[in-house]
């Protein structure tokens, strides 16, 4: 994983099974597709257009100038303050997620350039316990914004999260307040914050930092909303519209600025950053 090459210590040392299958089956259309073609197509099914999750590395590669990413994530991991055990211990979940993703928690932040414009970029990984925001993610987001203030760079956050990290109880809820408080400092410093919402951006992440972008851009196919469909149906047994919480729904109801295809996101950011050249 080249993006982490300079900070190996940030990676958890696991042996990943070699990726020996050349083919994959699209979960949307069922088509058997050649993996490399999917990857070349920004992890979008070449047959039906379904968006697959991106790893942090893939996402970063897609957005920033080649080799420009410098991982500045703090060297921290979850501390399990509640000694939380459900069917499995939180500690085990963390270690498994680290093993699968190769990163210490559900987010990586770094310095990079986009079309030569220096930025601070944070990227979440949904595969890490649903991209949930616990103390580590909260701290990394704040660290990213504070570095942005220090270096006078725009801050970009790519969200992919189901919400709060339940296993940290109220500590995780408080990350909404924490990231918001630091976001206010970013605003006071006159630096732009571009929030990118991908599939899914919901719960506590959507109800705090992700919704506080100066500009909010949804990736095509994003799911955006506060409460999950199940929660809603259990709580109030309401009939939900077909387009509920889709990118289109959020756009039509004024919650986001734009919807952009994955392949155009880099260009989009580049255009947008151009307006802030005098500011940052």
């Amino acid at each position: 994983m080249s993006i982490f090459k300079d900070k190996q210590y940030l990676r958890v040392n696991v042996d990943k099974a070699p990726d020996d299958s050349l083919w994959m089956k699209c979960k949307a259309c069922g088509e058997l597709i050649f993996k490399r073609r999917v990857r070349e197509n920004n992890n979008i099914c070449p047959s039906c257009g379904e968006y697959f999750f991106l790893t942090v590395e893939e996402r970063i590669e897609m957005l920033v100038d080649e080799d420009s990413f410098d991982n500045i994530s703090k060297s921290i991991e979850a501390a399990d303050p509640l000694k939380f055990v459900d069917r499995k211990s939180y500690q085990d979940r963390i270690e498994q997620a680290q093993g699968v993703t190769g990163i210490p928690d559900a987010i990586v932040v770094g310095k990079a350039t986009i079309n030569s414009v220096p930025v601070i970029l944070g990227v979440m990984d949904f595969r890490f316990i649903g991209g949930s925001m616990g103390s580590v993610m909260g701290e990394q987001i704040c660290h990213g914004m504070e570095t942005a203030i220090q270096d006078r760079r725009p801050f970009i956050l790519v969200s992919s999260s189901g919400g709060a990290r339940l296993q940290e109880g109220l500590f995780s809820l408080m990350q909404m307040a924490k990231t918001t408080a630091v976001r206010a400092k970013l605003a006071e410093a006159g630096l732009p914050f571009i929030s990118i919402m991908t599939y899914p951006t919901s719960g506590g992440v959507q109800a705090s930092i992700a919704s506080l972008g100066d500009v909010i851009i949804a990736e095509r196919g994003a799911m955006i909303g506060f409460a999950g469909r199940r929660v809603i149906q259990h709580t109030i047994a309401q009939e939900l519209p077909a387009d509920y919480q889709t990118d289109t729904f959020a756009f039509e109801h004024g919650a986001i600025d734009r919807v952009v295809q994955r392949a155009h996101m880099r260009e989009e950011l580049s255009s947008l950053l151009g307006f802030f050249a005098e500011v940052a």
Partner: protein
Amino acid sequence: MSNERTLDLLETKIEELKQLNEMDGMDLSSEIAKLETKLVELRRELYSNLSDWERVKIARNPKRPYSLDYINTIFTGFYELHGDRMIGDDRALLTGLAKLDGRTVMLVAQQKGRSTEENTERFFGMTRPQGYRKAVRAMKLAERFGFPVITFIDTPGAYPGVESEETNIGGAIAESLLTMSQLRIPILSVVIGEGGSGGALAIGLADRVLMLENAVYSVITPEGAAAILWKEKDKSEEAATALNLTAEHLSELGLIDAVIPEPLGGAHKDFDQTVEALTSSLVEFLNELQKLELDKLLDARFERYRSIGSYRELGALSEEPSSDGSADVESAPAESPDE
């Protein structure tokens, strides 16, 4: 151990004995006194060993005092301000001016209903976007005039549903948090009953956060956690314990500033006593906050939230990963997407 119902029956019997005592002129005083002592002992035994799940049930007890009960007792002249100036007037979140100990304060309070009718009007205490936007309006008004803000938290959560999402409930909560993080006046929050996730925190980013002894404050309901994490609804009790959602636990964890004692059995058992304790806490904390210089207040508020969280240096635990190498990583967010 005795349960609440039998103790309530005993209390009734004692009352009946007292009446008999007065009516018939026979002297049961000493017996009655003994029974009363016993009752107190039994109550203490029962309630001092409350499980976290039992606290959840007390926090949700429909007899429990709600925001307006406190507002109308502790404060004088509550002058309600209605409407978000945009969509509507949420009845599950009230805002208004009132006097506490001679000074004007702005109240922002979540309000549950008691009757079915009232609950329909108040959406069972679930706040909608117009509620949070009204809160923002009220807090900004308070800021203009230097009135401190006191928020009462008591909600199962923000109202989930089509109407809420159509008017950007997530954005409304985020805006409220942003407003509170920058508000140039003291903010004091009290969780009086249920502190339900983001819908509660939305009015809880404060300089001091208090909780009544039997209130709970959690990232998710025990039932929700049981369903998502245990995949079994009847694990709610276990989940309640795991979540550390009681005032006592949260105080130990350093996440709240004070626990306001309740009478044995809960705030509704002796409302006056609860009011007294709450009032003196409110006045004390408000006095403390109002003494601070504004810049110091804001710096302290920032530091409070900036430093919140629990993590450790990577690799600090020198264990071997206990992972069995399988890729069984589940998604377990508060509101997990539907797949």
